[in-house]
């Protein structure tokens, strides 16, 4: 490669929400940052996910991060300006359809209360019905979080990328990492668009992060790529002012401001990292469709107009990897296992702290990159 080497202090790899938010916070704090992305900003899971912005149902060790992220979401225009209008706060309800679901929900609300978290509250059937009058199925109550909502994911990621650039970061798209090497002076990142040198590297490469870690000489990460699937329907009059789920099931259901329903949750197809392609397997979404029609009978007659998927990296414990790598000057933030979108802004802040040698304000022990090494 005859291109001149670029001298940068921090190189963030991966233009998803984690990478863009990290670059944004670093640049805002005056750091010299280059963000490189092999495709384009928000091309994979970050740009095409269900857009759920929820604290509801989080693994307990993720809750502090999720609450911190929500503070940023609620003042998002300070970070990303006009693109903040892509976030639609409303409320999130996860209903119980039977006594098992009810027991599950009541127990969760109670255990969170004991741990000091009061954002998830239990609603009786009558309260659910008054907030969702178009609901056709009968529920046995449900969990509610006020202020959770949904966002147009692509615009949020774009917003963070643009904010990063506004604060002075350099953004390079279509730039694939071919090799990573560390010497006395720092990192050499060899890419399809030349070699970049930096003191620190942040690995936010999503489903491709384990391969990147391997190139950097890190221990093997048990990261598996899949393509979570979603469908969007035709437009319908508004009947659903919330994002909905069902306790004990993985459904996620929302109605956009266009009137279109987005239905998905948990169902994933195969993903091919080399070809950059996620498959779709609509038949596997049938159970989610049945649940959606159980909640709102009218949805049955609505036409599905598109099914899509985005490539995401999953960890065996469904918890992300956030923390310093084995190599000096390397920080990881990946493996969000299809629930990292809402966390993004707080993860970006935490990764920026780690890069700058500060103590993040949220404890990150549960996300320790070395946690599977110890088991192995």
């Amino acid at each position, binding site marked *: 490669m005859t291109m001149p080497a670029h001298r940068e202090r921090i190189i963030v790899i991966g233009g998803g929400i984690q990478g863009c938010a990290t670059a944004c916070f670093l640049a805002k704090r005056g750091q010299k940052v280059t963000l490189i992305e092999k495709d384009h900003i928000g091309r994979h899971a970050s740009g095409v996910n269900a857009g759920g912005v929820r604290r509801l149902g989080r693994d307990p060790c993720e809750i502090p991060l999720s609450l911190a992220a929500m503070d940023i979401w609620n003042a998002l225009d300070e970070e990303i300006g006009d693109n903040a209008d892509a976030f639609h706060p409303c409320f999130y309800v996860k209903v119980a359809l039977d006594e098992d679901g009810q027991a599950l929900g009541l127990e969760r609300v109670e255990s969170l209360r004991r741990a000091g978290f009061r954002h998830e509250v239990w609603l009786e059937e009558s309260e659910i019905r008054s907030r969702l009058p178009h609901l056709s199925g009968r529920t046995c109550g449900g969990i509610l979080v006020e202020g959770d909502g949904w966002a147009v994911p692509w615009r949020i990621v774009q917003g963070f990328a643009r904010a990063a650039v506004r604060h002075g970061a350099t953004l390079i*798209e279509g730039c694939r990492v071919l090799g990573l090497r560390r010497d006395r002076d720092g990192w050499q990142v060899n890419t399809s668009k030349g070699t970049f040198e930096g003191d620190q590297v942040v690995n936010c490469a999503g489903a491709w992060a384990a391969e990147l870690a391997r190139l950097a000489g890190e221990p093997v990460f048990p990261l598996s790529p899949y393509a979570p699937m979603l469908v969007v329907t035709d437009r319908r009059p508004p009947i659903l002012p919330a994002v909905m789920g069902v306790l004990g099931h993985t459904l996620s259901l929302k109605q956009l401001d266009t009137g279109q329903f987005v239905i998905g949750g948990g169902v994933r197809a195969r993903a091919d990292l080399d070809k950059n392609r996620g498959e*779709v397997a*609509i*038949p596997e979404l049938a*159970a989610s469709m049945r649940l959606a029609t159980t909640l709102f009978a009218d949805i049955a*007659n609505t036409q599905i*107009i598109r099914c899509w998927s985005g490539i995401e990296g999953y960890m065996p414990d469904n918890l992300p990897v956030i923390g310093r790598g084995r190599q000096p000057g390397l920080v990881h933030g990946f493996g969000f296992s299809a629930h990292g979108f809402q966390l993004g802004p707080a993860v970006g802040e935490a990764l920026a702290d780690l890069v700058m040698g500060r103590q993040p304000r949220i404890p990150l022990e549960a996300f320790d990159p070395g946690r599977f090494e110890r088991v192995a």
Partner: protein
Amino acid sequence: MTAGSHYDLVIIGAGPAGMAAAIEASEGGLRALILDDQPAPGGQVYRHVLQNAVRREASSYLGGDYWSGQALADAFAASSAELWSQSRVWQITGDREVFFSRHGAAQSVSAGAILIATGAMERPMPLRGWTLPGVMSVGAAQTMLKTNGSGADGAVFAGSGPLFYLTIWQYLQAGLAVRAVVDTAPARMTLAQYWLALPALLQPGLLLKGLRWRAAIRRKTDYFAQATSVAINGEDRVTGLSFTDASGQRQTIPAEHLFIHQGVVPNTSLTMASDLAHRWCPRQLCWHPRTDMFGESSVAGLFVAGDGMGIAGAAAAVSSGRLAAQRIIARARGRALPMAPVWRFLKWRQAAIRPFLDSLFRPPDEWRVPQDDTAIVCRCEALTKADVATAIALGVSGPNQLKGYCRAGMGRCQGRMCALTIQKMIHDHGGLPEDRVGHLRIRPPIRPLTVGELAALANDDAGA
């Protein structure tokens, strides 16, 4: 639920290619099933042919080519192949399971081999006003004529192409008044076209037929040749058509019903959604699935036949359907298919006229991308040329990234009505060759599928 039903061959589309393949396959001892979304076999070209046959006298205006479909449909009906009409195929998986909706529920069958014979569709024609009430495609006008013998008296036709002249001729034969014909094809042939006309002489019947149609149209209608800068007039509905005639004069003619056409392209919804490899055909200005000479695609066991693999007409579609079926039979019996060179020649022979027609009726650029900034490009999302151009100017790597900027191609038509236009606009903006700009990524379901129909699949699986 028919899950578990297995066929040696599942054919999608009961047009000439699909019917011919089904006849051949059943004669060869294969268990074959055709899934077709229409109520009766025939495809677009032989639409309603068995129903019209009982009143053949009354609908003789449809012409001899149309009636040649009757023998094919009869032979198909007499074959052992099964036909499931009104079945909308919305996904084919790599392991050859075919998912479709029928009678309000989603179902599936598995197949030893699959033949996609979904034919052609009309090229989108994004002139300003193409979405106005009163404007229809020429293909739609012909569909009405075939389905129930109805047509619009006093209509204006604008555009060019074989189907354009055929339909006007059928209109005239049916005794419908045609107010005017605005022909956008050049009146004189270029030197290159004279060369291309040489192989076309191998198909003198087709050439003569075309000349006869054009002569009748010139004689019986108010005919304008070499029309350029065609513009549709009207605000709430179409009121007329303006264009520049051969002498450079601007003309305006009133029109209550306007039928437009600029040729047909392969309907690649299913082949693209099934992840088959495609190639850009600069001659026909459209995408073709990559196949070998038997029609086998880049995915083993998945075949394509008929106009869906490249526009070549009904007779060639019959041959390609039979050829694909023969290959599938031969493979099922574990032997090679002999006489490949003969088939290759026959295939070329049946499409000998195509390069000439493709050149003569190449759609003008002004019909591929509208000249008017206010013209709708993406109908589903109601985006104008200016909307799309603004998004392209932000710097997009291709149509998939463009979706994020302006939602072009994200509506229920899955890009059928805008993908070729968007691709050309991105090409015009950045100079990237069209084959590298690429087509919008097509995702299943490619045919209408309701949430309830898909939910039915879960019910049945649970009971299975």
